């Protein structure tokens, strides 16, 4: 007797493979209630930087995820270049008028990296001066961009994200898109050298087009104490509707890590080593930007 085997009769109608994690709605509500109970009674942990993993996992990341998956359709490359454990410094280009690229990189490393790594961002002091934004940024794991904090996080084995271009990158006019600005004073390199953490260059393509900045209202910026006040084709012309970012197609590519441990911690005080490494990181990111731009078919697809 021949062995029984399954012959697909109508392959088109085959049920899709069961999704691994699709909790029923009542489980979701129960989880939400448990979350609420924890929040009201304060039974969650935060660290010395103000990072609140409970809030990040249950509120902030779920809020960012639709933007990551549907709106910008982010494609990540080279995630194997980010180590699974231990400290590393992710250095990326900064763009987009509002630092959405930092948030999307956080989602990318948490959702798509096999080790679900948390990216601890370094932000400018302006971020922490602004009410709500500063408090929320700390809860998401951001801390002040200074050597003390960067070295502390790296030596604790955290993955630290830094955008050395700062406001020069995020607030540059649309005409200068994808050209890297000056990389600060190389503080990030000395932090990596002191802790021996590898530097992972990261290129982000797509963020430049979300709010094309065609003008800068300097007077308004000065009045509000901001480094720039963006004028885009839709903002402030359309009011709050102008705050909706354009749905550009994004690529986030992590390059091969540049190791720093062999230089030794003393190299952090050698300006020539710091300058050379800074240039090397900058060149690597600029080249991967050009490569990704060639790969991209159009801005929105």
């Amino acid at each position, binding site marked *: 007797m021949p062995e029984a085997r399954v012959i697909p009769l109508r392959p088109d109608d085959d049920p899709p493979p069961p999704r691994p994690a699709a909790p029923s709605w009542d489980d979701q509500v129960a989880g939400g209630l448990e979350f609420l109970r924890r929040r009201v009674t304060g039974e969650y942990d935060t660290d010395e930087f103000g990072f609140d993993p409970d809030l990040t996992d249950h509120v902030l990341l779920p809020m960012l995820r639709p933007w990551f998956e549907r709106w910008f359709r982010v494609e990540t490359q080279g995630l194997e270049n980010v180590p699974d454990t231990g400290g590393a410094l992710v250095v990326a280009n900064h763009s987009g008028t509002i630092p959405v690229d930092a948030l999307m990189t956080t989602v990318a490393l948490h959702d798509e990296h096999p080790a679900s790594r948390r990216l601890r961002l370094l932000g400018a002091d302006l971020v922490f001066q602004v009410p709500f934004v*500063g408090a929320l940024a700390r809860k998401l794991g951001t801390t002040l961009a200074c050597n003390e904090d960067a070295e502390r996080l790296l030596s604790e084995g955290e993955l630290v994200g830094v955008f050395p271009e700062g406001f020069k990158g995020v607030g540059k006019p649309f005409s200068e898109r994808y050209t890297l600005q000056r990389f600060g004073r190389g503080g990030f390199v000395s932090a990596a050298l002191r802790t021996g953490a590898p530097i992972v260059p990261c290129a982000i393509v797509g963020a430049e087009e979300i709010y094309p900045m065609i003008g800068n209202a300097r007077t308004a910026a000065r009045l509000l104490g901001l480094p720039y006040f963006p004028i885009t084709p839709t903002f402030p012309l359309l009011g709050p509707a102008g705050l909706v970012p354009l749905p550009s197609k994004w690529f986030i590519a992590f390059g091969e890590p540049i190791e720093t441990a062999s230089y030794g911690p003393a190299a952090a005080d050698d300006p020539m080593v710091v300058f050379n490494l800074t240039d090397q990181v900058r060149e690597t990111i600029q080249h991967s930007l050009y490569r990704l731009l060639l790969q991209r078919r159009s801005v929105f697809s």
Partner: protein
Amino acid sequence: MPPAVVLVTGVSRWLGGALAAELAADPAIDRVIGVDTVPPAPDVLRHLGRTEFVRADIRSPLIAKVIESASVDTVVHMNISATPAAAGGRVSMKELNVIGTMQLLAACQRSPAVQRLVLKSTSAVYGASPRDPAVFTEAMQARRVPAGGFAQDSLDIEGYVRSFARRRPDVGVAVLRFTNLIGPRIDSLLSGFLRMPVVPTALGYDARVQLLHEDDAVAVLRQATVGDHTGTVNVGASGTVLLSQAIRRLGRVALPVPQSAMGGVRKLARRVRLVDGSVEWSPEQMRLLNFGRVVDTRVLREEFGYTPRYTTAEALADYADTVAPVVRPEFVGDVTGAARSVVGAVAGGLNAVHAVVGGRHRPAPPVPGLRAVRDA
């Protein structure tokens, strides 16, 4: 070598009294002399044991006589007032803090017997601003020098102590920078603030708070007095909580108030006697409650050699036992539990309805004939 004669200033307050009691219980110490401007409260007095109390103002020359005649060899200076209300106004607070310290140090410098000086300072010297690194080590300085108030006094006092240490290099000087103290017995800045049923907080800000349990504070002061560690040490528990989290854990209700309305809320709270005078609302305190401050305690644990028994969360929990919560955690648990059972019941009901209604619309079972093909 343990000290023979210890002088403790500010002995009438809880922390000073607790330290004096601890030292008096140590038979290796010959005499413990407590100094303060007001006599200690009866319950403090009961624990003081063989401590001799001298009612003296450290601003007066009397203190020099006490140090000279008793041949004091160890001075613990903790008579630094953090609140203008307790000291009778900002002017007298500053006078007590700064001039008092200068007098005390002048007396110490004169007396050849003095071998050791312990200063109870504060981590407020680091200030609190959005430009601060997350964690301060002893080597760091305030990015924005705190202007006025307690922090400014403490910075001045530390400056005087440093110059004293230069003039008397034979004296071992330990400067202890304490974080906010909390516990069931101590009356600190933060404990008064958190005792209010509704705690006003700055809208849009959430500070990181590092605490130290009162028992750990006494133990550190004792070890600094009898030990020989010199230099500056940050003293704080491990771990931090956010201010909002602390308020929730204590079962209080946070009332976020815009920065500009803070002054009005303060006046209102005073008028309806919601708060007593010890609750401090100086701009410096508000900055602390906006941005928070955390200190690194590696030196305390590794060089000074003391690991606090309570973490920040445990110290807060110990304090929580003494305040009746406004929002009881059991109540929150009951509410969410009830909501969960309602959800469970609704889900169960819906599933049952689904089974009945959906049964009719379910697609027809596969035709038996097809299975025969599969088996073939």
